[in-house]
């Protein structure tokens, strides 16, 4: 199983590196959205709850772009059939795609979070970077799990570009709640000393619980999406 996942993952990443169809688009979308927010809110800087909200909404919508494209190549070029013929555990595809999506999200955040710090964020970012990393990782796991599942569900329907986000957004609301509440204290302006409150444990626990529950469920049901 691990070998299959490794092989599939390598294929995914290689294809993405060669075609560059998801990650640059997602990153550019995020940066552009920050600019749009500046004009929409008519503010030069944001902090605290507002900053957390803008950051996570943008990351979420950029993730939608990646989710939409996740299985499209397989669907259009017969990759599903080829995979189904191979004598391997089908859940390997879930794991490979989810890890790939996580990787795309990581690259997205490598671009978007500094851009956010540059363009819109009032307090300096470095004060909260380690904690922010934790929140990002936990949220990304949840987005990757649900995103892969929803992508597989939507790609074989007629209105795939529409159904994907429509399905994913409500499902990801708990992630938004957990991530935004957790990162909000990290993004506040401090007067002196640069001390920042750590994120509340309950939000990290919510994210972790969500990741666990939906990771397991995705693992359990994914097989049924790939039949015939």
């Amino acid at each position, binding site marked *: 199983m691990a070998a299959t996942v490794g092989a599939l993952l390598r294929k995914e990443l290689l294809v993405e590196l060669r075609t560059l169809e998801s990650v640059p688009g997602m990153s550019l979308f995020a940066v552009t959205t920050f600019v749009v927010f500046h004009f929409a809110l008519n503010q030069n800087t944001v902090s605290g709850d507002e900053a957390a909200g803008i950051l996570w909404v943008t990351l979420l919508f950029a993730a939608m772009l990646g989710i939409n494209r996740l299985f499209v190549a397989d669907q259009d070029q017969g990759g599903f059939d080829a995979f189904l013929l191979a004598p391997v555990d089908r859940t390997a595809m879930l794991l490979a795609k989810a890890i790939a999506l996580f990787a795309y999200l990581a690259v997205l955040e490598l671009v978007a979070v500094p851009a956010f710090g540059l363009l819109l964020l009032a307090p300096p970012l470095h004060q909260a970077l380690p904690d922010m990393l934790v929140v990002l990782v936990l949220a990304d796991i949840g987005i990757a799990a649900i995103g892969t599942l929803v992508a597989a*569900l939507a790609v*074989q329907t*007629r209105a795939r570009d529409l159904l994907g986000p429509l399905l994913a957004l409500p*499902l990801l609301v*708990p992630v938004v709640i957990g991530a935004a509440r957790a990162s909000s204290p990290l993004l506040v302006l401090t007067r002196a000393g640069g001390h920042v409150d750590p994120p509340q444990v309950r*939000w990290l626990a919510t994210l972790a619980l969500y990741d666990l529950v*939906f990771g397991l*469920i995705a693992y359990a049901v994914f097989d049924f999406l790939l039949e015939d």
Partner: protein
Amino acid sequence: MSRTLPLKHGRGLRPLSIATIAAIPLALVLVFFYAPIEAEEGFLQKIFYLHVPLAIVTLCGFVIGGLLAIVHLRTRDRQWDLRSYVAIHMSLIFGVGTLITGSIWARGSWGHWWVWNEPTLVSFLIVMLLYATYQPLRFAIEDPERQARYASVFAIVAGAFVPMNFLAVRLSSSYLHPRVLGSSSNLPPKMAFTFLISLVAMSLLFATLCSYELTAKRTRILLKARSRTLGFR
């Protein structure tokens, strides 16, 4: 298979209907003549006996739809998919009722048609937004076997989402305000009894309507199958 139209599909319908028709007036009488007027909210609190049972039954309906979907995926018997579909469909209707009655209650109690710090209402909105995609999802897949399978996967994921979502929303809104619309714990005995009967009546109504819809659907399916076998259409 017998050669006459099997009436066993509608077998449970009659006792269910009778029980429901008995339970609903009983519940109404209790609500308006037996339960005392609540001290803080006054007469408006009577909506509680309608809104909260609606909410509970809706959520259970969604979760049950997920459980039925699990059975469908394990047995591959499409009857289970039909049951899952009907449960979710009925829960959607009851869910609309929940949102509307909740909104009316918020308006009477707080002056606004929508409040963000009532976690039940907010969770409901999210859950309804999710399940609103159930039918578009089904109708976007043409192959019936795949449609049933994908719908079941959705029902399972969404069914697990319901409690998770409630937890998250509850956590996020309870820190500042007390619950706007009152909670259902610590009820005096007369109110608790009335609430219980209302809940039972609502559950019976849900079960009856589901049974009704299942029977109607199955009859339609049988009718189509018969026309095809006899060579018409």
